[in-house]
């Protein structure tokens, strides 16, 4: 299994910090009320690690990674990502920052139905200004590397769920981002396919220049993590080396 081939020790807490989170809060306006869904979140998420964010439904996992990846603003606190303050960034700067530094993988893949696998995967490069041809060629390479040889010209509806998620992974990797953010990447997949997807993510995280952040419910995949942040009710209630956590909860 990929986990065993990992070169870094599990307690790799000496790795450089990718995202430094300090006292982050998030309020949603519900009617006239302010609903606080994140309370004083403080954490360091490190390079070369696969960090999982786990916890019961509604505890704020999705809200937190949305904030950390710069698509949702926090209501307070400080976030430093690759040395830059996310809070200080304007919305337009955040768009550029995401485009350069972050790859996204969603539960529902969110591929454009009319584009081929390679074209879908090429989107971040197109966004960065590359021509569609060059970007698609690059995307084909990435797809081949993750076992999608021969599927690159197919439309999403001709692919299985696991294959579509691989296209989404290729889309998240094609521009070589430093941070990969995944929200429930295996929730729509069967156990075996889910494991295959996690193996790919595991391998990406072995690169010391990368940081993989995975939100999940799925305790069957906990073992792929280096580190597990447990959330409950909008707070981080535990910060564990994956082995310990799997031992206790897995």
């Amino acid at each position, binding site marked *: 299994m990929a986990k065993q081939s990992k070169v870094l020790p599990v307690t790799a807490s000496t790795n450089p910090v990718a995202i430094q989170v300090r006292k982050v809060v998030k309020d949603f306006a519900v009617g006239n009320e302010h609903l606080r869904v994140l309370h004083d979140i403080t954490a360091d998420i490190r390079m070369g690690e696969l960090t999982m964010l786990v916890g019961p439904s509604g505890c704020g996992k*999705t809200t937190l*990674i*949305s904030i950390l*990846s710069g*698509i*949702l603003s926090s209501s307070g606190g400080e976030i430093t990502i690759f040395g830059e303050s996310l809070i200080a960034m304007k919305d337009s700067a955040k*768009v*550029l*920052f*995401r*485009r*350069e530094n*972050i790859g*996204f993988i*969603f*539960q*529902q893949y*969110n*591929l*454009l*139905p*009319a*584009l081929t696998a390679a074209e879908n995967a090429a*989107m*971040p490069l*197109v*966004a*960065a200004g590359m021509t569609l041809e060059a970007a698609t060629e690059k995307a084909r390479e990435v797809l081949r590397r993750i076992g999608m040889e021969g599927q690159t010209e197919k*439309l999403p*509806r001709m692919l299985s769920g696991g294959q579509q998620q691989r296209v989404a992974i290729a*889309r998240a990797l094609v521009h070589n981002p430093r941070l990969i953010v995944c*929200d429930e990447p295996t929730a729509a997949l069967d156990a075996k396919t889910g494991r295959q997807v996690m193996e790919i993510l595991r391998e990406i995280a072995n690169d010391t220049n990368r940081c993989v952040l995975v939100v999940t419910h799925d305790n069957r995949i906990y073992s792929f993590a280096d580190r597990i942040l447990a959330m409950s009710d909008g707070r981080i209630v535990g910060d564990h080396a994956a082995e310990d956590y799997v031992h206790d909860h897995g």
Partner: protein
Amino acid sequence: MLMGDRAKYFGLIFGVTFATLLMTQQVSIFISLMARTASAIYAVDEADIWVMDPRVRYLEEVEPLRDVELGNVRSVAGVEWAVPFYKGLATIRMPDGVTQQVQLIGVDDVTMVGRCPEMVMGDPMALQRPQQAMMDVNGFLFTWPGEPLQVGKQVELNDNRLTISALCEVMPTFFTFPILYVSYNTAMEVTPPTRNKMSFVLVKAADGVSVAELTERITAQTGLQALSQHDFAWRSINYILERTGIPINFGITIILGVLIGLAITAQTFYIFVVENLKQFAALKAIGVTNLQLLRMVLAQAAIVGLSGYGLGVGLTAVFFTVTADAPALKGFQMYWQVVVGTAGVMTLIVVISILFSLRRVFKLDPAMVFRG
């Protein structure tokens, strides 16, 4: 982006094709019809000025002038020559008793100003002899269907026998009746003996005399309406534009075409956007800007728009080619200005549809992409 969805793709092409066809075809027919109105006036190319009763509003509406007016016009300084011109409707009777309505045109016996210039058969000078007439080719074919073009046919007009001794080609005019040319004197003989019969006085300005000036002088001196060829043509066209239901009918058809085209394209784009809202949100999360999204969709739309537009213009061209020989549509053509104008309108329709639909995407919060 739309290519993956055949139903929408073809729906869009159909919408654009339909609107393009309707617009190019109807506008072209309308302009052709207006051109027909003017063509009869421009056909009399020797005359600079048309003099008529002040009540006349367009070519087909004739108010007879007194014969003395011819002399009055001739006496205006700067008139090189002035000749009488008769224009009216008449009924001819064939030897077998069949009748047929015609446009009767009487041209000055000596100068023959106003006769059709393009001869097909026979001798135009024959008109100078009594009881001779000239007919347009389409009129001949309409009157004697199936018979070969020939001179020598006899017709009766108010108990006067006329021999058709020449055939000519004319630009189609507003009315599609056969046109029968005779000399002015013959016209006076064969038409009912009313007091005044002269329809127009055609005037040539002397060398160095400006047409505008001369028209003013004729009007001032005779109390008649004098219009340059160009002004009379436009006056006739404007009359039709303002006073008849023709422009309204065409206008309604054209506006309907535009609206239906707009409705189909806007709705198709809108549905496409709504169905793919999450995918668009994902792209925005990834870092694709609104401008880039707009460009991507525009590029796709350009392909669809061009296909539909090409088809529409093609169909219109086919229509005008197929109907080229139909007498009712003779001389009708597709004007390049219409083709270009339609391209502009269709571009507008597509761009408006896209902007309308993409508004949803522009305002979209990328954070929704993580929501279930």
